């Protein structure tokens, strides 16, 4: 087994010493080389949920809707849409004159084929289907109009149509060439078309001049799969890679890149939020006063600045600031050990009481964080023991069965960045991730927003849910981790994305 820590340390030390080196040679004009940590193995939209599928495939495919780095929904292959039947039917007007990379026309047939495939036999083999299960069927109204008929209104569906399983695929191409061929030779309507793919090595794309949004500014886009962070950074320093995308660069390697005059670190808040959730059913954390005391007793800002190198934002509820449902008026509880001690006293908790914190053993950064948390708790008279688990054991056997200690790690984040997904899974009675709490009022709030398609109204309820959960101190909200990109300075117009769905149409290289 490789000693990654050792490698990083050696690399950082030496790269700092050698950061005086001369400018990197530029590669061929108009070609951007990207280092991605994982080969998803298939480029078929229905096959995977790996974020590094999206960081490539967002350039190859389009969805009916589009969502860029600003996370605002915009027209994609559909120019407009309307809700009918109280939100149970979505009618899309399709963009005209769009062609797939193989010349096949995009039309209502292609939309129907895409969703029939996703929800049918082929989609059943992969993980994507469940995210679109609300779609009952697709009805073609005419060549340029198509209806998605839903089992129930789903306010998040329009977002979901902008990514992953909902990417529109070419019917004739797949029927002619077969599924296996399509996995390794993707064709879509996106701004870059597929050139070649070498499993475990890389994938090459080139500009699709006929894209409906205009031709991309780059002529070629090369992705290389490099999983070892030290290697990816060495390639960046050597000038053979222009962009290293997350999740690759660990916080400890940021200075190496910052000290290199040709490189820079660009970050965006990522989708993942971290919290220590409480056992609200048994022990001392049953009492909301105790839970609040524990939150007040931990200096989360200092943890972010010291352990996380400032690459995270403190959070007040279990969501980041880019999440739909985020309430900017909510502020994290301050660090106040005196008030914490007073609250503990009030709750009748004697100094020296103990709590157990369950964490994922393989999450090295979080293990450092939780050790700091344990020290802070010590200062307010709570003895915390940290219990590391194998991730899958914690996720499958311990949390859902309600066998955790007083606190347990939860890291959460979906690409839709909609608080509904988080809140419902964490707080609704009977959900897999909510083994301890039952709250009829919270259940009602959670259910009510699921059928509302009015965005403003729904956002209001989501904010209400966030405040309600914070009032009850259902978890100790910790932070929202940044997505970290290492970028060569020859790259211009690069906008980091929070959700790995990179579309590199505006990027240029010197």
């Amino acid at each position, binding site marked *: 087994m490789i000693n990654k820590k050792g490698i990083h340390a050696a690399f950082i030390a*030496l790269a700092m010493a050698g950061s005086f080196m*001369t400018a990197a040679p530029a590669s061929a004009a108009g070609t951007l080389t990207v280092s991605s940590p994982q080969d*998803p193995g*298939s480029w078929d939209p229905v096959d*995977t949920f790996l974020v590094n599928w999206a960081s490539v495939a967002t350039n190859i495919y389009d969805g009916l809707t589009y969502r860029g780095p600003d996370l605002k929904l915009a027209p994609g292959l559909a120019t407009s849409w309307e809700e009918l039947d109280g939100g149970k039917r979505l009618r899309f007007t399709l963009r005209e004159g769009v062609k797939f990379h193989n010349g096949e026309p995009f039309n209502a047939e292609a939309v129907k084929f895409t969703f029939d495939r996703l929800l049918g036999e082929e989609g059943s083999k992969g993980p994507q289907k469940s995210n679109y299960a609300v779609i009952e069927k697709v009805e073609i109204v005419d060549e340029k109009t198509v209806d998605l008929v839903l089992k129930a209104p789903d306010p998040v569906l329009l977002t979901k149509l902008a990514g992953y399983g909902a990417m529109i695929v070419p019917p004739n191409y797949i029927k002619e060439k077969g599924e296996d061929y399509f996995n390794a030779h993707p064709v879509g309507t996106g701004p870059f078309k597929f050139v070649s793919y070498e499993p475990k090595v890389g994938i090459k794309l080139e500009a699709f001049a006929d894209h409906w949004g205009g031709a991309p500014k780059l002529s070629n886009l090369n992705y290389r799969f490099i999983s070892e962070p030290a290697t990816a950074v060495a390639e960046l320093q050597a000038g053979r890679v222009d962009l290293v995308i997350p999740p690759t660069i660990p916080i400890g390697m940021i200075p190496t890149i910052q000290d290199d005059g040709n490189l820079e670190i660009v970050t965006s808040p990522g989708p993942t939020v971290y919290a220590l959730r409480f056992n609200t059913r048994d022990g001392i954390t049953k009492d909301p006063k105790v839970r609040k005391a524990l939150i007040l007793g931990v200096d989360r800002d200092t943890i972010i600045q010291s352990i996380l190198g400032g690459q995270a934002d403190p959070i007040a509820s279990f969501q980041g600031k880019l999440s739909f449902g985020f309430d900017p008026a909510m502020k994290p509880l301050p660090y106040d050990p005196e008030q914490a001690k007073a609250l503990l006293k009030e709750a009748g908790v004697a100094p020296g009481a103990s709590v157990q914190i369950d964490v994922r053993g393989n999450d090295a950064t979080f293990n450092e964080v939780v050790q700091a948390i344990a020290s802070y708790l010590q200062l307010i008279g709570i003895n915390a023991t940290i219990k590391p688990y194998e991730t899958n054991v914690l996720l499958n056997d311990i949390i859902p069965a309600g066998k955790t200690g007083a606190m347990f790690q939860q890291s959460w984040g979906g690409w839709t960045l909609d608080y509904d997904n988080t809140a*419902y899974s964490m707080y609704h009675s009977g959900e897999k991730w909510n083994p301890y709490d039952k709250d009829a009022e919270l259940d009602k709030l959670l259910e009510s927003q699921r059928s509302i398609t009015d965005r403003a109204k729904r956002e209001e309820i989501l904010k209400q849910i966030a405040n309600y959960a914070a009032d009850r101190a259902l978890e100790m909200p910790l932070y929202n981790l940044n997505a970290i990109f290492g970028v060569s300075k020859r790259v211009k117009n690069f906008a980091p994305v929070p959700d790995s769905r990179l579309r590199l149409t505006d990027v240029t290289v010197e």
Partner: protein
Amino acid sequence: MAGFLIKRFLQAVFVVFVVTLTVSYAIRFTGDPALMLAQGAGSVTEEDLVRIREGLGLNQPFLAQYFDFIKGLFTLDFGRSFLGGTPVSQLIASALPATMLLAFASLIVSIAISIPLGIRAAVARGKWADQTIRILSLIGLSFPNFWLAIMLVLLFSIVLKWLPPSGMDGFASFIMPALTMGIILTATNVRLVRTAMLETLQSQYIMVARAKGLSESKVLYKHALRNCAIPLITYFGLQFGGLLGGIVVVELVFNWPGMGTLAFDAVASRDYPVLQAVITVLSLMIVFVNLLVDIAYGLVDPRIRTE
């Protein structure tokens, strides 16, 4: 010879059986591949996981899965990667040559350095050249290979910008990985060559050769080296087998698209079929190399052939 080959073949079958069974069983403790595939999915229901497991054939009992795998071996069908469904044989077909080439290049580097140095050390026994070579090889022996790899990358890729830091892309890309593996092998090989040579140089036929008035290089390279070739070939051969297995770290640092990287990725993503296939192929190769070493004996030393 035929009896010998049959015995070796049966041994190989047994080894592969034990290795595959152990690996197939052990990898199933790393966790659920279905969860891995569904990571990033907002909320995954139990039904989703059951459906995905069925699609991967994981709903079958372990022995049924194992025998499917063994059955596939006979037709070189290793199944499909859990990650994206690429046929595993296709992944192996591109990774195996990459690893073989690297292992071969490393061995060449090592032999090219260690034979002349080892002979020099043996001839100069006890003198400063011998001492220097022995100390150098001790230093070489104590290098962790990933550290050496990183030093090379820093020097040749980042500071001097002469060589590509990673990937397999032409002759230049072989230099650093082969040097890394080669230098570490050299450390042991120099000592081995030295010891073998010392023994041989004391033989009477060397005295005879010298008495005949042959040049020193002829004595060393024609008479002495040939006679100590047997232990060396054995060792280099076994080393080649060991190289195939021990190449993971070096492949990872250099992002070499070989069996080591394939195995590492497979463990990380719980890709059972890929890991099973990689281990099986590597163990087959090691068994095969051992066999070749035995045959090579016969070629170098006629006494073994006629026995």
